[in-house]
Structures are given as structure tokens and as C-alpha cells.
């Protein structure tokens, strides 16, 4: 299997899907001439022309709504929102239109569209450019939200997102774009609603997604190498629909769980997972579930303050050590 970067895999997948289906087209700010703020769409304007790689003005409400309307007539728009933060300007078209049209009109017209956008903080981009708002969208029936942590998953999930007949929020991460990983050959897809156990373990489970799932995998691998603890990592990959079964089965096995998430703690993705576990795995829990999430503050600019607000590998390690059983499971 070839090692390919996240950025390259997204670019390749978009190209292949556009070649495969004439109805697939891209739209967003600076995705054409400028080749994308993060170069995900590099080369695609040249290859497909301005009909299918549509540079939009800075008008998220307008062009996201436009994508919804185009999808109603059977096109398959893939919209890039430059950063996750800017999606707030388009939320009415996502919440009240994309997510409602199929249901509200009695199943007469689906809305097959994808919104791709990178989240993530930590590059001194400060308060308005560093937010992780996935819980807003995972809350909404009618939407699907996926957040891959590896290039291989990104390829399979993006294919599913584009071929699916419903609106999908495909969440990327700024800090993962250069990450490389193995990408299987062939036209594989990954169904939504399937979590992946990226690392098997016995002592406790770390549940995560997107970049944090990648960090969790590294931390768990280190614990294993150092023969400290056997940590299982579950990458949920799909926030809505959520694969409750895989999470619950993992916790039934280990009896302990940590949710490692980049959004704010209160009302966040972790809160939903904790609720799921207490509903379906209550009798198997040997300790209270922990959440390792971002500090609840608008992200500050100044580096020391920013570092204090973000959580990373160290916080996860501390939580693991804190939660670990006194006697290891065999």
C-alpha cells in the first residue's frame, strides 16, 4: 500500500469522483485560480474547467444555499468552506434547508451534497478561526457528519459522502493535511456509522475522532511500546450516524473509557458518547468516564495562553494514567 498524504488523497478522490460522475462539481472560495487556501483542489480547475470548479464570492449563506438548490435538481455539489468557523454564516441553509428538504416535502427530492471544511486550532489563529463546531451539526437529524483521522479513511468516507443521496458534513483538520498514511488500492468505500478500533487493548478505551484520534493512536502505541498499559483506541469516524455498538462493545471489554475530543467540553461530542455508554454499558463500567476536551474559553492569540487552552497528547496521557486500573487486565 502506498503512503499518501491527507491532502493528496483528498485531491485524488475529488478528481476521481469528478471523472466518474458528470454531476459532481466543486464550489467554494478560492478553490480554482488560487487552488484552495490549503491546496486541496490544486490542479482541478485546469483539469475540469470553470464549469465544474466554481470559485464563489465570499458569501457562504448564498453559495451554500446555491449548492442545496443545485442538489435538489440532481447535481452533486462538493462545497469547500475555507475554515469550519465560516460555516456559521451558512447555517440557515444547512439546518433549515439541506437537512429538512427531503423530510419536510414528504420524500420528493433528496439533497445529495457534501460540505468539506477543515477544523482545528493551535496555530495562533485565535478566537474566530480555531473552533470545532461539529456538535452543532451532529445534533441535527437529516445531516450526516464524518471526521476521518487517516488518509485511508478519508478516501473511503469522501467517496461515500459524494455518492450518498443526503447532505454530508465532511470534517477535515488543518493539522492532518500533511499527515501520511497507507491508502488501499481500488474503489473502496467506507459506510457511514461504522467506528473503527484502530488499536486493540485491554485496560481502557479511548474514544476519539479526527486529529485527536490520530494522537490517541500514537499515545496508545507508546504505552504499548513502553509496556505500560494496553489502551484500546476507537475512532468513531462518523459522528452522525454514530456506531453505538462498537463503542459499547469496547467499553464492555475494558470497563473504562476516556473521550478525547477537540471541541469544548460542555454539550460536546463527548457528552453524547458518555450518555450512550451509560445507557448501554452502565453495568460494565469500573470507573467514571473521563472527558479530555478543549478548555472552555475563546481561543486566545498569545502562545502560552493558547497552549494552556488546547488539549493534546500530554492531557490524554495524564487522563490515562489517572483512570488506569491498579491491576492490569490479562
Amino acid at each position, binding site marked *: 500500500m502506498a503512503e499518501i498524504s491527507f491532502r493528496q488523497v483528498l485531491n485524488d478522490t475529488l478528481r476521481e469522483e469528478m471523472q466518474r460522475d458528470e454531476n459532481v*462539481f466543486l464550489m467554494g472560495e478560492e478553490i480554482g485560480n488560487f487552488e484552495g487556501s490549503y491546496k486541496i483542489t490544486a490542479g482541478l480547475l485546469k483539469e475540469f474547467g470553470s*464549469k465544474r470548479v466554481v470559485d*464563489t*464570492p465570499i*458569501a457562504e*449563506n*448564498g*453559495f*451554500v*444555499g*446555491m*449548492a*442545496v*438548490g*443545485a*442538489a*435538489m*435538481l*440532481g*447535481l452533486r*455539489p462538493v462545497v469547500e468552506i475555507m475554515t469550519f468557523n465560516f460555516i456559521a454564516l451558512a447555517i*440557515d*441553509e444547512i439546518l*433549515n*434547508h439541506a437537512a429538512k*428538504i*427531503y*423530510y*419536510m*416535502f*414528504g*420524500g*420528493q*427530492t*433528496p*439533497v*445529495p451534497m457534501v460540505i468539506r471544511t477543515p477544523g482545528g486550532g493551535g496555530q495562533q489563529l485565535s478566537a474566530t478561526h480555531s473552533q470545532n463546531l461539529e456538535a452543532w451539526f451532529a445534533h441535527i*437529524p*437529516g445531516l*450526516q457528519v464524518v471526521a476521518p483521522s487517516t488518509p485511508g479513511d478519508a478516501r473511503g468516507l469522501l467517496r461515500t459522502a459524494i*455518492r*450518498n*443521496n*443526503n447532505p454530508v458534513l465532511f470534517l477535515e483538520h488543518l493539522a492532518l493535511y500533511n499527515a501520511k498514511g497507507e491508502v488501499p488500492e481500488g474503489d473502496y468505500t467506507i459506510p457511514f456509522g461504522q467506528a473503527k478500533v484502530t488499536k486493540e487493548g485491554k485496560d481502557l478505551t479511548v474514544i476519539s475522532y479526527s486529529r485527536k484520534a490520530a494522537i490517541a493512536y500514537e499515545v496508545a502505541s507508546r504505552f504499548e511500546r513502553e509496556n505500560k498499559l494496553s489502551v484500546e483506541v476507537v475512532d468513531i469516524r462518523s459522528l452522525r450516524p454514530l456506531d453505538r455498538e462498537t463503542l459499547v462493545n469496547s467499553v464492555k471489554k475494558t470497563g473504562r473509557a476516556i473521550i478525547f475530543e477537540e471541541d469544548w467540553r460542555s454539550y460536546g461530542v463527548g457528552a453524547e458518547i458518555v450518555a450512550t455508554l451509560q445507557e448501554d454499558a452502565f453495568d460494565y463500567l469500573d470507573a467514571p468516564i473521563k472527558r479530555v476536551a478543549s478548555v472552555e474559553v475563546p481561543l486566545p492569540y498569545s502562545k502560552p495562553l493558547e497552549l494552556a487552552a488546547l488539549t493534546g497528547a500530554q492531557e490524554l496521557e495524564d487522563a490515562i494514567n489517572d483512570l488506569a486500573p491498579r491491576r492490569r487486565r490479562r
Partner: protein
Amino acid sequence: MSTEQQKRPDERDVTVKRKSMSRVVTLPKDEDRDTLVDYYSQMLLVRRFEEKSAEMYNKARIGGYCHLNLGEEATVVGFCAGLGPKDYVYTNYREHGYAICRGISTKTIMAELFGRETGCSRGRGGSMHLFSLEHRLLGGYAIVGGQIPLAVGAAFAIAYRGSDEVVVCQMGDGTTNGGPFFESLNLAKIHKLPIVFFIVNNQYGMGMPAEKGSAVPELYRKGHAFDMLSERVDGNDVLAVRDAMRRAVNVARGQHEPVLLEAVSYRLKGHSVIDPDRYRDEEEVKRGRAQDPIPTFARHLLEARLIDEQGLDEIEQQVEREVEEAVRFAEESPFPPIESLMDYIYAPDNFEPERR
């Protein structure tokens, strides 16, 4: 106001003089008698349907909000008469009349208002969310301005595929003060899309007079900011609205240029059925009602000898019969089964549009 102060040497010309308003209305010679009578029937059907909707709402047969086209019938009928059968329509939540005039049966519309499975949105949408793919009404939308970017997207899809339909997007006067309106006009213009933005200026956004909410009281002028062909038309004149729509649709279809139309109309009653309408000046309401397009058009037809009193009575009876049948159909239709609550949240991979 293209028909005002125009007089033709044609014997069908009708001069209407009233204390409040003196104007000459023309029924052009080349108009087909049956077409004109049909416009009248449609306007009356919308009127009676809406009156019945209010009655059924007050009897709690209809829930939620219920916004009526009362007073806007000439605008509604002219709007639809100017379109081709393959053209797409997006509207706001005050859309019963548009659904009727696009040819959706009054039975399935009333059934939708009653929340029944036989409704045109299977009872999932209600009064504000009528839809029929078959009739190319791509939805009534209840978030002010939300439908405009969608309509632009539909026009984008038409241009993308190189087909020759036009999208027409109806909205109220208050909508023109919000961001989605301006973003949409800009997007439509830069992409040269086949779309007509159609503002129904019924002079009130709920209780706010249009000129108080908009820095520019002539709403069509907002199109000028985008170098868009823009026109204002008398919304009480069904032929003027139809002709303006035809011109606009021709430009949109032929030149792939967006067009903006403003029809000045008057809302005869409150914002919705539950609004007692206490905030408007009595004299003003009286003046507005004096321009009621339905009796005016009936008088024109009579005076042009295109119909007699008996003919009008027959239309009245036919319309009332249809509305009664719509209510009966709705009453007798089943509610959606509870087991279907979770249907239609997500479309299946093998989705095929059905014809209903």
C-alpha cells in the same frame, strides 16, 4: 404600471372611474376570451380557497401558521400564467395560491393543510411547505429569504446542464432587506443564471410598512445595484403581471440574464389567520380593499361583455364546489401512520423520484 392611463380604440376598453382612483384598464383585443375568464376563475378559486382555509383554521382543522394570498390573487395568477410548464417555482410560506395555479389539485393542497398523508407534501410540511416535483413547485419555504439561494442553485443546475427551463423565485417585500437576497442577486448575476426574482410587495412585512423596513421604498431599484433588468408592475392587474413575467422569463431563458420583478399588491387581511390586523390605519385599509383585483376584474369582464352575471354566478358555484370537495377530500383522508414518523429523514442510495 404598464396598463395605467392607456386607452385603446378597441371597444373592449373599459374605463373604471371611482372616487378613490381614476384609471383606464385595457383588456387588449388580442386576448382570448376563454383565457381571460380562466384568469378570473383562478383568482376566484384562490380567494375562496383562502377564505375556506381561514375558516378551517379557526375550526382547528388546520394547525400551525396559515398565511393567505387574500388580495394578492391577480399577482398569483399573473405570475403563474407567465411561466412555462417546465419552469421551476420557489416561493415563501404564503404560497397556497401559487400551488393552485401551478396545477396542484386543491384536494391535495387542502389535505396538506389538514396534515394528511394524501397532502402534496404527505402531511410533513403543512401550509408553509407545499411541494410538488411533478408541478415543478420546488417548495414553499418558511425562513424569510431561505428560498432565494436555493432558487439560484436550481438555476445554476439548469445552466450546468444546458437545458432551457427558468427558475422563478417568489418572495415578500420584507425579504429584500436581508442578506440572502443580496447574496443571491449577486450570485445570479455573476453566473448569468436563468432566474426571475419576483417580489410581492404587499406593503407589509408582518406589521412593518415596506417603506419603513427598506431604505429604498421602490424595491425593484435594488436590482439596479447589480445591473439587473428590474421592473415594477401593478400587482392588482393580472394581465400586467403576466406580461411582465413573460418578458422577464423570455430574457432569463433567452439571454441567461437574471431579472427582478416587483408586483405591488395589497394584503387584504392580517399577516396570518391569527393576526387581527389592528396596526393598520383604517382609511388605508379601506383604500387598499377598494383595489381588490377580483371584483375589479369581474367588472372589466362584464363591461367588455366577455361574460354576464349568470356566467359569473356559474364560476362562483363551480369554485365553491371545488373548494368544498377539497375540504371533503382532506377530511376523509388518513393521517400519516405513526409508524412512518421516521420515514424520509434520509434518502436511500437507490432513490428514484416518483410521479404522484
